[in-house]
């Protein structure tokens, strides 16, 4: 038999600690609020780069030619009638400058190239404005390259947008790969079209139309936002109810309640973390909370399953003893599972950027909280609910052998 760790001694401390954390979180929600993402707070977010156009392409043939710039090379996909169907791959490793690349491109019949900066290196990748079609036609397709000499900072962008009320500007990345993010709310009567045109005109006027290229753009209207908030709340509550129902059928009601309390605890701890760190709260963050709900219930159920198993096995009339034995027996499982999941999530955290990066961070917090709550919070609740516990298995089978000291 493994050594039994007396987890029950820490129950009171754990409950106090969690309460303090959660209350501080509620306090922070009230005072600092939650940094709601676009999903919940309508408006527009646009991310763009300011880099010169190095090459312009036009085409007036009858085929469809698509330009596909990737991180390692540029592909020309030629299809349709009027030309031989093929994919021309031009890796940057073989075409180190824009001039070399342009020469190869002009080898394709019908494409007219206009080189604006032949010396620009291709190694850092070429890119196009995401809001234009990459099918070549009479209108020139501008191809941009990262340029160190572009000296723009967030203040310049703010100055460019000074006529637009409530524009919030952030710099993402640094050096030549820097991009800028603008966030705008929607004023009364504004539409996606008007808000986008206004912003893009201001940017083009300040930095030149040929320099601005949009990386991504998000717009969410107010009506859509409202229905999303309502749906999300229903979603979380209904998930909790379903999990509680299933656990009640499989276990006893107080076990089920302990499991649900543990997951509510985890959700609140995550909300506390989110408001402390002022991380953006988007649908992805919501997905993280829901994941932890699923994950933490997993951990709690494994422990409860062991408690139920031990109730018929352990000879003790104190429920905390059974609880301590069960928790000790499942401890290595709890630690190993949390660790392996953490490996996977930390890998996500390290290698990604943007929303998934935040998602992974929220998961890390939730995983640790989930492992902790399945032992201490769920344990504390059951210990409290069963403090008047009488071991039925024990009293019927062993009652004859019990030596009674008292009268």
């Amino acid at each position: 038999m493994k050594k039994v760790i007396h987890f029950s001694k820490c129950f009171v401390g754990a409950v106090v600690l969690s309460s303090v954390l959660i209350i501080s979180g509620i306090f922070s929600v009230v005072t600092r609020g939650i940094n709601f993402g676009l999903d919940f707070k309508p408006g527009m977010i646009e991310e763009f780069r300011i880099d010169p156009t190095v090459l312009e392409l036009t085409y007036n043939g009858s085929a469809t030619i698509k330009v596909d710039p990737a991180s390692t090379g540029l592909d020309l996909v030629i299809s349709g009638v009027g030309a031989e169907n093929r994919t021309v791959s031009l890796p940057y490793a073989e075409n180190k400058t824009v001039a070399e690349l342009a020469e190869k491109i002009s080898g394709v019949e019908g494409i007219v190239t206009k080189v604006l900066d032949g010396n620009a290196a291709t190694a850092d990748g070429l890119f196009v404005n995401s809001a234009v079609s990459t099918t070549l036609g009479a209108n020139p397709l501008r191809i941009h390259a990262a340029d160190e000499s572009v000296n723009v900072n967030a203040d310049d962008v703010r100055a460019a947008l000074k006529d637009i009320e409530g524009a919030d500007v952030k710099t993402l990345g640094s050096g030549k790969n820097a991009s800028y993010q603008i966030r705008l709310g929607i004023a009364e009567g504004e539409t996606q079209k008007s808000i986008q045109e206004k912003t893009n005109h201001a940017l083009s006027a300040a930095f030149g139309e040929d320099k601005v290229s949009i990386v991504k753009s998000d717009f969410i209207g107010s009506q859509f936002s409202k229905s999303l908030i309502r749906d999300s709340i229903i979603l979380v509550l209904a998930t909790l109810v379903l999990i509680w129902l299933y656990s009640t059928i499989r276990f006893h009601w107080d076990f089920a309640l302990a499991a649900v309390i543990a997951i509510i605890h985890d959700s609140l701890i995550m909300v506390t973390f989110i408001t402390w760190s002022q991380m953006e709260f988007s649908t992805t963050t919501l997905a993280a909370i829901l994941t932890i709900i699923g994950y933490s219930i997993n951990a709690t159920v494994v422990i409860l399953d062991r408690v139920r198993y031990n109730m018929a096995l352990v000879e003790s009339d104190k429920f905390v003893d059974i609880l301590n034995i069960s928790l000790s027996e499942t401890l290595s499982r709890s630690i190993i599972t949390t660790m392996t999941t953490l490996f996977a999530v930390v890998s996500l955290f390290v290698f990604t950027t943007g929303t998934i990066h935040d998602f992974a961070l929220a998961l890390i917090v939730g995983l640790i909280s989930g492992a902790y709550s399945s032992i201490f919070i769920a344990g504390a609740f059951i210990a409290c609910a069963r403090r008047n516990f009488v071991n039925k298995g024990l009293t019927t089978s062993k009652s004859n052998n019990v030596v009674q000291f008292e009268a």
Partner: protein
Amino acid sequence: MNKRTRFVIILAVLAVCFWFLWPSISWYVRTPKDEQTLALGSLEKIKDYSTVKASEDVNAIKKIANEKSDTVLDASYDYLVKAAKKNYKADNKKVAEPMTVSAVLGAFSNEKELLDVIEAKYRESILKAKNRYTNSVKLGLDLSGGMNIIVHADLEAALAAQSDSNAAIADPAAFKKEAMAQAIETLTSRIDKFGLSSPVIRQQGEDRIYIEIPGAADGESVNTLIMGKGILNFRLVDNDATDKFNQYYQTHAASTFNADGNLIDPSIIPADCEVIGLYTKDDYGLDERIGYLAVKKEIALDGKYIKSAQVTSDNITNRPQVTFVLSADRNGEELSGAEIFANFTGAHVGENLAIVSDNKIKSYARINEKIGGGQVAISGFSVEEAQNLQKVLQTAWLAVPLEVESQQVIGASLGDQAIRQGVKALIVGLIAVLAFMLIYYLGAGFNAIVAQVLNMYIMFAILSAFNLTLTLSSIAGMILTVGMSVDANVIIFERIKEELRSGKSRAASIAAGFDNAFWAIMDSNITTFIAAIFLSQLGTGSIQGFAVSLAIGVVSSVFTALVVSRLMFDFQTDVIGKKNMSISWRIK
């Protein structure tokens, strides 16, 4: 169950998975990009392509035959030789040996027959590729780049506008449904016209339309496309110019239009005309182009004057006809719709008038006489055609105000970056987890690794089987599943260790370990599954992708942990004859 049955079951599952995965593999790995672009194009483009290619081939073959009639066609024409042989056999004629060019040509009674065979071959190969795409895992916008738009249709406003002009609508619910269907159809047809690759357009809820355009698309033109009012008008057909154009098109099919659909050489028709496709509905209710007409750029009558349109039947012949009413009210303008039409038809009796909607000619008819009074009847088609035309005409007044509620544009290079990040995270996470299992559980860890790798394989296969979309959040779901599915293995291994400590043999420990762990694994996974399924039904966007891959992962990880890993243990005990257990550094 004995080991052989279990082994066969596992093999069967893996084989079925491979069958599901195959379309995805052949689409993403084995189909070149230019073929992908062709396959993703609209059916109209595919048809154009095969027709042009086929006529090029026919000319090439004829040229070979003229130069040297006894040459044998090269291997790329094998299908044609086969078709020729089949024709000979069907006619009970002797099949020439060897099959020379002239023998091949002789098998077809006319050039049209030959053309059809070649065209079918081109079309089928593209449609096959399209089919592969339909059956494969799709990349979400965050991975492929592109644009998604949610449009809100203001049905109340459309209803109110109707109630003002006409008598009260009897059934508002039916009206809304019809208006919504029309709005979607109009958008579909406009976006199709745009030639974008495989756009998705579907109704979301009662009054929203979801549009997804993968790859790069011009934001501004898509916006105009959505927000733009339906453009319906009547224009005069120029018969001479039409004939001239058709003559030119027959010889220059491949080089008539540029990629945007404009004429490369505009001088082939008079400057006051333009060439527009003439469309009809095919058997699937999709627009099919049946030819081109040259029409005057000048608009004879704007669609805004149409008040209502109905399908009726002619009093005398009882044949179906479409009648529409033009406004007789001048509304402050110089002439009313009825007057404009009367003047125009009076001046052009005997000529043809085309109904142009969103740059497609939907129908054209001869003007028999001057039409005064604003009551117009068009006849000469089937009931179905009449109904289609009535729907076209009703777009003129049944306008549903559309508003963009959400729009997302993601650059293709950003998608490229996301794929690389996601794959890297997936691989590193997987390796870290597997290395840990191997170090901590030694020999048993190897079983966990096999189970884990199969788990990933099954997950991708199920994603492929249901044609689900792979997004960054579903990759996140997979990575999390990797971590969580190891849990089932951990529960089992820890149990086996306990049994070993209590002195049981290898076989007994394995049996007891799996039996005791069974309900813990089932209970914990069923609860997670409940949460995941629930989320996948109610959630949207990133939540949905995440939940679906989590749900799939839960199912496949239970299978691999309880069936695959168990079989491996039993195999090692019974067949290899292992007596001791390599599961921990402490237990030997």
